[in-house]
């Protein structure tokens, strides 16, 4: 079954001329809590790319993504999403962005359909189109039989699928996911992965953090490794192997990752 391409009649205000080449450009991004969480991070993600961001616990992955999604202001640096300065024009940047976290934050007292109607309304999607998108997503994510039930009785996997449907109902150009597969069973995880790959095939850009290295290895076109708030390695799996000093085609991502993060950040 193919997820049909969701069309949205929406203007993307403030789009720059280089929007087609770079989905996300992050420069000199910094955020300090008790210690630097993100420390001068530079990152470029191409449009239509599936990018996995890896790193040990506390490396700064979630903080980075939360700043990109507009959930947290950086202390310094710039974030450009499809040519839009996300710090200067946050509303325009958010219009083409979606955020999914590891802990699905949905409204227990709403049904999935109501939740999607609410999200589509927030993003200003035309109602008829929003309803078609919502029903398509619910069907694709096997939530259609539960479309009129309140989410309070849902399992973690079902809640995560509702959250993912919410992220996709407004057809974002950039989807930011923080550990979206945590706690999902094999079937739900497969569904979520399939949906994300479909979206990338349709031209959407995905940036995702994960601790499941196999997922990054199989799905991502490029992988970034972050440690102590800095990007310490980036590239395809073969490029990462070379950066880790391993033999191409001979080492798993897990070995490469452990080698890279074992070395002190430059």
């Amino acid at each position: 079954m193919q997820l049909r391409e969701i069309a949205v009649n929406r203007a993307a205000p403030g789009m720059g001329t280089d929007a087609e080449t770079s989905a996300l450009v992050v420069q000199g991004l910094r955020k300090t809590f008790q210690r630097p969480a993100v420390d001068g991070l530079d990152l470029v993600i191409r449009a239509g790319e599936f990018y996995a961001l890896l790193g040990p616990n506390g490396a700064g992955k979630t903080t980075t993504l939360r700043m990109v999604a507009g959930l947290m202001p950086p202390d310094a640096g710039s974030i450009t999403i499809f040519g839009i300065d996300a710090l200067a024009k946050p509303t325009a940047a958010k219009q083409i962005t979606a955020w999914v976290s590891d802990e699905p934050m949905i409204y227990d007292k709403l049904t999935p359909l109501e939740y999607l109607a609410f999200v589509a309304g927030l993003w200003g999607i035309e109602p008829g189109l929003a309803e078609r998108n919502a029903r398509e997503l619910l069907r694709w994510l096997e939530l259609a039989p539960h479309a009129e039930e309140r989410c309070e009785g849902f399992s973690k996997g079902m809640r995560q699928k509702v959250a993912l449907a919410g992220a996709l109902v407004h057809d974002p150009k950039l989807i930011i996911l923080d550990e979206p597969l945590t706690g999902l069973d094999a079937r739900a995880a497969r569904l979520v992965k399939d949906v994300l790959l479909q979206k990338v095939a349709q031209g959407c850009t995905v940036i995702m953090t994960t601790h499941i290295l196999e997922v990054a290895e199989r799905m991502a076109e490029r992988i970034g490794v972050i440690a102590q708030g800095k990007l310490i390695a980036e590239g395809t799996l073969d490029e990462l192997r070379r950066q880790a000093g391993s033999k191409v085609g001979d080492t798993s991502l897990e070995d490469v990752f452990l080698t890279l993060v074992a070395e002190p950040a430059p």
Partner: protein
Amino acid sequence: MSGDTALHPRPLAWLARQESRLSWRDLVWLMTAGYRWRSRSVAIWLIFVAVAMHFLAYGMVARFAGVTEESGVDAFSAVTGSIGLSFFLMLSQAVEQVTRLFYGRGDLDLLKSSPVSLRRVLGLRVFSVAVSTIAMTVFVAAPFIDVLVLRGGPRWLCAYGVSVAGGLAASGIALVLTAALFDLMGARRTRLASQIVAAVIGSAFIIAIQVVAIVSIGTLSQSAFFQSDVVLAHAPGPQSLLWLPARAILGDPAALLIVAVTGLAIFVAPMLLLAGRLGDYAMAAAAADVATGHVLGKGMTGFFLGRFRPSSSAGLLRRKEWVLLLRDPWLASQSLMQLLYLIPPAIFLWLSYGSSAGGLVVLAPVLTMAAGQLGGGLAWLAVSGEDAPDLIASAPIAPRRMIAAKVESVMIAVLIVFVPFLVAMAGRSIRTALIVAAGIALAAASSTLIQVMFRSQAKRRYFRRRQTSSRIATFAEAFSSVAWAGTAAIAASESWMALGPAAVALLVLTGAWLIRPK
């Protein structure tokens, strides 16, 4: 780990220590919201409150220190009324705690999988409910009892004994009530039902007394009611068993003994009778918590959000807030509970409708105060109790617009609640109704603004503990509501002195704005 430790289950005393440590940490968390640095200021604050309460108690009860058993039925009636009020508050607290005992702790799986008897642990926890109910009652009653002891002699110390007996009895009855709800409604509905029962019990007695007082003697005063001719005419003779708790408080040792034994029996009997089923209730509660397939649909409120239709983002946010509130009976009952206290003034309004408009003046502060409290509660739910903060923060809406929409949702909800009162008032005096409307709007808007200034991120289920988010916000909200209530009352009396409390309310708002978290 030694073999001995592994083979011998821990004794009851060890479990009791463990339970008391958990309860103590719960209490500390409730007061400090988990911030260690708050412990010292909380301790200072508690000492300040205790001292202030003693002064307040002195002003309120010192003149009654000479009351004795010989003072007659009118003294018994007044004391029994106070005991009744305290007991229903204790019962309300105990029902809530017993419910939390079955649903609240996340350690049931650990306990069930351990060699410890679940029945003994739950029995211990019911006992800890009694201890905490007694402790809370004593904390509130102590200043009054101390003043009476100071002025009237040590016989008043018996009041502490009555407090203990009352706490035990309240806990026993709470256990029976909760067990009855489990049997009648099932585990899934019991939590909500018992929370509502607890809230209603806590307010029902005082409201019922006020209503009867208004209807019978035309006053809102409970103390005047208990000593009124109407009550005394129907009161039993001085030897009635009804006066036993009052006699015990006034220093009759035999009465105290009977009250203490009765309280103990009311606590122990259900414990013994229900001991074998406590584990079943706990497991049913745990199963209800994790059960899936609990299908609830849109219901009537689906009208607000159920359809895809053109709408502004502000309109969507407003409707979302209303739907979430209407679909959560516990939250709705908690936030609207204050409205129950409007029943007595509503009856007062109804009864005095035919008399002069002057009677309406007394309603101005009541309605204004209630609007401030309701507005604050609803604003906390809308602003701090947002269930999907990431979704809202990542949506393409300016934060200022989002906050404005939430404030509008609160103000409209408050307006809907108070309009019937204002219309009734306007029928008698349009001028008074306009003044009260302004008071309601200002009080609700001030409380809402304070909640916006001190917004934090919290779960909606912590609504009852929202004051721990910010003590400053809690007090600022209370002070501003009181100041606006005073303003409305004086303005309704046609005096320019109303500008005084209005200035205080504005000062409170300015102060809150200056010290708000940046």
